[in-house]
């Protein structure tokens, strides 16, 4: 039976609409998995030594126990955002002679081998050997390890429920935030309890029965939860929200562009997919810090890259999927009383407005790093608006992946908003401005470097009409194959 399901999964992958890009994503995924599978045992080996010698922690084992509470907290968050829930397309199976329990058991069973669980073993096994080497008791460590594994799997099954229950997610988030705040203001230190709690399983390994009992209970709870949900009007039902009308008439001053802007705003507000993409774009705002704090290692042109990227979050995350956002009703757009040019222009305006807002926010965020940072942000913003805006739109003519707006999957990963492909496309767009900046920076100063990049951006904005004619040509020739690709959805 298990193999029947696996066969189904296999077919759904290879007979999917976009096998090619699926395979590429898979390869990337495997690359990262292998990378982690390699690096994690290494981490396990060096943890003890680094804690003791480099960080001067007196008792690394109790330090680990102290922080385990946070590890699990973050683990839940990471799982929620990244770990995909294994979904068998369940509806057609309901009428087959496969029992409901089997369907659920398969879904839950498959997740046992999820990367997010196995990685724990990769870390724990080498760590345990190091600990034994340091004089800890092997038998006692076994109890400790089993406990951690139990908690890893408890979070695994918790994730199943969290993905279906926003309220629970928010309450867990609030609790965690609360714990952190309590600790920060030293009102109450949870880590002491975390230390005592996890140490208990080392000193009395037999107690590990308790978390395991809890794990088994969680499994059956989730099992029941899912089995009860296997009705088309319960768990398999699409969630619907009460609709609220939104006017946005203040946008009307933008003329014909406003008609589309209003819709795009509604799209971002109402489609989970679009919303999470925009949120992902907001994360980029802080990208500049990564390189700022490592300037000695990367050099100042990478710092500039960081600022440039920070202003481009919306552009790269949302803009790269123009016109795919309209894929579900592209034929409608193509038949309406509007010329192609107007349509593309409105999309461009949206991207520019988004980038302008990102630039302003970034200016504000980086202002305390000094004027240099602000200039770099402004230059990067102008360049993103003036050049990269066009490039992204132009590339959009050839991106023919339809987007399922109604899918309520979460924010990262392959069928999700965070797309490896988009990142790859956007990287070359970064090369030219960095070269320009470096030239100015090398011969004169970073200010001149910024100025050059900024001026190129402004020139780009001024050449709008000419560039649009080129972009529209690409869109017009690609129109029919785009429609064909979208209609397959």
């Amino acid at each position, binding site marked *: 039976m298990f193999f029947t399901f696996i066969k189904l999964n296999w077919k759904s992958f290879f007979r999917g609409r976009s096998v090619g890009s699926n395979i590429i994503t898979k390869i990337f995924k495997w690359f990262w998995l292998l990378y982690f599978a390699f690096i994690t045992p290494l981490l396990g080996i060096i943890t003890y030594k680094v804690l003791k010698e480099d960080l001067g922690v007196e008792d690394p084992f109790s330090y680990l126990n102290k922080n385990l509470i946070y590890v699990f907290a973050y683990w839940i968050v990471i799982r929620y955002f990244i770990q995909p829930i294994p979904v068998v397309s369940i509806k057609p199976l309901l009428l087959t002679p496969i029992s409901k329990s089997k369907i659920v058991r398969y879904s839950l069973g498959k997740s046992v081998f999820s990367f997010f669980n196995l990685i724990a073993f990769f870390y724990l096994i080498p760590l345990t050997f190091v600990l034994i080497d340091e004089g800890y008791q092997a038998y006692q460590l076994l109890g400790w390890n089993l406990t951690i594994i139990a908690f890893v799997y408890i979070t695994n099954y918790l994730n199943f429920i969290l993905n279906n229950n926003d309220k629970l997610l928010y309450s867990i988030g609030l609790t965690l935030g609360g714990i952190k705040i309590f600790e920060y203001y030293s009102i109450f230190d949870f880590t002491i309890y975390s230390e005592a709690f996890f140490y208990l399983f080392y000193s009395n390994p037999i107690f590990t029965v308790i978390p395991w009992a809890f794990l088994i209970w969680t499994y059956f709870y989730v099992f029941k939860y899912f089995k009860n949900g296997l009705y088309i009007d319960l768990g398999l039902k*699409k969630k*619907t929200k*009460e*609709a*609220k*009308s*939104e006017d946005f008439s203040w946008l009307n001053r933008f003329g014909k562009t406003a*008609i589309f802007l*209003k*819709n795009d705003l*509604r*799209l971002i507000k*109402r*489609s989970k997919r679009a919303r999470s993409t925009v949120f992902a774009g907001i994360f980029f705002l802080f990208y500049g810090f990564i390189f700022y704090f490592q300037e000695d290692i990367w050099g100042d042109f990478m710092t500039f890259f960081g600022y440039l990227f920070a202003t481009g979050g919306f552009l790269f995350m949302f803009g790269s999927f123009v016109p795919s956002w309209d894929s*579900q*009703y*592209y*034929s*409608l757009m*193509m*038949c*309406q*009383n*509007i*010329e*192609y040019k107007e349509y593309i222009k409105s999309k461009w305006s949206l991207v520019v407005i988004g980038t302008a807002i990102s630039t302003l926010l970034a200016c504000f965020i980086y202002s305390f790093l000094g004027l240099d940072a602000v200039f770099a942000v402004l230059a990067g913003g102008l360049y993103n608006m003036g050049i990269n805006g066009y490039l992204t739109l132009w590339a959009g003519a050839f991106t023919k992946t339809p987007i399922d*707006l*109604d899918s309520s999957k979460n924010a990262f990963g392959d069928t999700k908003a965070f797309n490896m492909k988009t990142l790859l496309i956007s990287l070359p767009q970064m090369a030219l401005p960095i070269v320009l900046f470096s030239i100015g920076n090398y011969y004169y100063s970073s200010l001149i470097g910024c100025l050059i990049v900024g001026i190129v951006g402004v020139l780009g904005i001024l050449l709008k009409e000419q560039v649009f004619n080129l972009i529209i040509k690409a869109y017009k020739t690609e129109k*029919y194959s785009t*429609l064909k690709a*979208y*209609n397959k959805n």
Partner: protein
Amino acid sequence: MIILKNITKKYSKQTVLDITDLSIPVGQTFGLVGNNGAGKTTMFSCLLDLIKPSTGTVLNNDVEVLKSEKWKSFTSAFLDDTFLIGYLMPEEYFYFIGELRGLKQKEVDEFLNKFEDFFHGEILGGKKYLRDLSKGNQKKVGVVAALLGEPKVVILDEPFANLDPSTQIRLKQILKDLSKNKETTILVSSHDIQDVTEVCERIVLLEKGKIIKDIETNPKTLKELEAYFKG
């Protein structure tokens, strides 16, 4: 006047559409019938420049569809649910289409008033997005939106499918009323030959992309078509 000349559409070796000469005069109510795969939707898609024909030209009121976008200002269509924007509420959708056709919200409201019966209280003022409406109600929204802004050419693919009997009858009446002014050209396709014979003045029967019959509707038409489809 809509003219299709030497229109063919080929996918690798298979010809799905092959129309040598078809002209539809202004104001005609034109029905297209045929079994699955006869090429009905393909023909409509060619008219709307959604599919590029392998050969031939399409003229829509003197505008060559492949070369100019001017036909968009007087043509409207509802082919399938790719003509709906799922995350909008029905009102917002009508306003959006209305705005593109140069209508103010108030004018759209006045227009929608006429369809109160047709909507049967299930469309306007509800708290649902289009994506959450039933298939039948979605179709109602799409068809009415295609009539917004007095288009000269209206193209509807399978407008009667998925509708309940009362709505079917009302829709037929709406189309008949619309055809009375003799200015709007209406193109309708359907699997239901009775519906088409009731509404359309002229019926064209497609099979494997070719025109098999081209009939002025008369009392015998239904019998004739039934005889054909019985095989």
